[in-house]
């Protein structure tokens, strides 16, 4: 069984009704679990304090978030990535972001102070935020803050980012940290935001060889994704010997996602999550912290994260979705919701150059290992 961290105040981290980073995604997930007969009993965290946020973020950045949050005008806000179309300012933004940080910090403390193994934070995952720059819907970097907290407690962290976008903020903040390995699988920056995450971004100083990136071709399907995941992650974990895994479980590598171009199905996500749980058992005595993240198709994201909840709690995956759930959310999701819980085995996509895509992904994984391994000996 896993500890689950959640607070309804997470819902206040919302950029407006038409913004893709919607609190409805978790609402739908919690309702789906309820209708499936699972009583979700989360522990409530506290919002992170200003002091805690300052462990990663600069004071002048936090002051601007606070000012915008209080409705004040900040003329240079765009230099800090704030008040942009992606990350618009809204009243209460500072506190809403600190709730997500607080949840991820609480999840970390469950592991390093309370000695728990599996913890699922039903929020956070704001992996694009920099120490002084908001980016890609992310204001404060809960992941980097939690990873630093774990490392200070003597648990070396392997961070695994399966969000379809490069985990650039986490990587940048921890680039020279020798206690932290980051592994990001993402659609190549040649094609997708934020543009970084090349094989050659390997870390610096004592962190050299510990920052790993697998850029994937657009239209990458599950089989190729799992192949490179298997090639890179176990080898990297065996070298690094982490004490805990921190996983950003973005659901936007799903084929229905509106912002990206990978082709994973819910079945592929199940395989990814099962592997990660297995690696936690093999490498970190089962210690693993999951956060949510991106995911911009309501009907895909709600099912991917429901899957995550079921798997970390060793619960069975249902064959079908409850009718009441489908009825309740179809209108708000704007699409019909599927009767079968899983996507079909074949989604009938006509992917051109499937073999070439798989070959290029294989090459990327091999180039990464060749570049990183000299630092591992």
């Amino acid at each position, binding site marked *: 069984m896993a500890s689950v961290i959640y607070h309804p105040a997470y819902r206040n981290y919302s950029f407006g009704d038409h913004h893709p980073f919607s609190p409805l995604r978790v609402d739908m997930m919690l309702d789906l679990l309820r209708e499936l007969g699972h009583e979700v009993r989360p522990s409530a965290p506290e919002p992170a304090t200003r002091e805690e946020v300052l462990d990663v973020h600069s004071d002048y950045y936090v002051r601007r978030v606070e000012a915008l949050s209080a409705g004040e005008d900040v003329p240079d806000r765009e230099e800090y990535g704030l008040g942009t179309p992606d990350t618009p300012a809204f009243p209460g933004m500072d506190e809403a972001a600190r709730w997500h940080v607080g949840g991820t910090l609480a999840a970390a403390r469950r592991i390093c102070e309370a000695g728990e193994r599996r913890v699922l934070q039903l929020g956070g995952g704001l992996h694009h935020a920099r120490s002084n720059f908001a980016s890609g819907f992310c204001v404060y970097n809960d992941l980097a803050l939690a990873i630093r907290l774990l490392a200070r407690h003597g648990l070396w962290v392997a961070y695994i980012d399966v969000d379809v976008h490069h985990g650039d903020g986490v990587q940048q903040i921890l680039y020279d940290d020798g206690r932290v390995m980051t592994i990001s699988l993402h659609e190549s920056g040649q094609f997708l935001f934020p543009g970084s995450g090349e094989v050659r971004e390997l870390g610096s100083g004592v962190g050299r060889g510990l920052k790993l990136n697998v850029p994937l071709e657009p239209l990458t399907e599950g089989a190729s994704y799992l192949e490179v995941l298997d090639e890179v992650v176990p080898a990297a974990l065996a070298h690094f010997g982490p004490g805990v895994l921190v996983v950003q479980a973005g659901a936007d590598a799903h084929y229905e996602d509106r912002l990206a171009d990978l082709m994973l199905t819910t079945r592929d996500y199940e395989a990814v999550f099962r592997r990660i749980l297995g690696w936690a058992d093999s490498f970190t005595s089962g210690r693993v912290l999951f956060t949510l993240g991106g995911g911009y198709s309501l009907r895909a994201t709600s099912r991917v994260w429901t899957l995550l909840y079921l798997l970390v709690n060793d619960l069975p995956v249902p064959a079908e979705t409850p009718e009441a759930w489908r009825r309740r959310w179809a209108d708000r999701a704007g699409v019909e919701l599927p009767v079968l819980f899983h996507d079909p085995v074949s989604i009938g*996509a006509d992917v051109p150059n499937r073999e070439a895509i798989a070959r290029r992904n294989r090459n990327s994984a091999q180039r990464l290992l060749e570049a990183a391994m000299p630092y591992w000996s």
Partner: protein
Amino acid sequence: MLVRDIMRRPAIAVAGNTSLRDAYRTMQEHGIRHLPVREGDALVGVVTDRDLRLATSALAAAPISPDRPVSEVMSRHPETADPGDPVEDAARTMRRRKIGCLPVVQDESLVGIVTGLDLLDALLRMTGVDKPSGRLEVRLADRPGELARLAGFFGERGLNVHSILTHAEGAASVRAVLRVGSIETRLLAEELRRSRFEVVWPPEKPWPR
């Protein structure tokens, strides 16, 4: 982008009576391959690592001693650039003359140097990603106002365009590659298509729905 924006300054230079041996050591110390040669402030030539190695090589018709001065092997009256030249002018000169550097001269004194690598850096700055951004590729009709229409699309939405590159594509169209400060390029692509732009990237996804 002008030569003064990309040149290295000050240029590491030597005097004409410097020995080939010392000039080569200077290149190795600084990790460079080109040395302007000057007398006083005035530029009198350029010597490259290839000049030095060939002059002293068994492959040379008449090899000379490394103790000879660089003035004996340097190229005289080298092509130069002005700090105010556009970088594409510098690139064109270097390409046409097949040379690896241009000393930058202002008021008859040497103020900097531009090499092929500096031009590659300039290319990376113009095309590359230095901020989190998403990429869009749009095919435009090659006629006045089309690029303005595209720029207006982003301006109306308060979106910052970090870079824009265009190149001709056949006779009638131009390909524009943009990096915009947004994660939502797919949604922008849909809107662009509704506004009758031909979006090349990101493409529509390949399944029947």
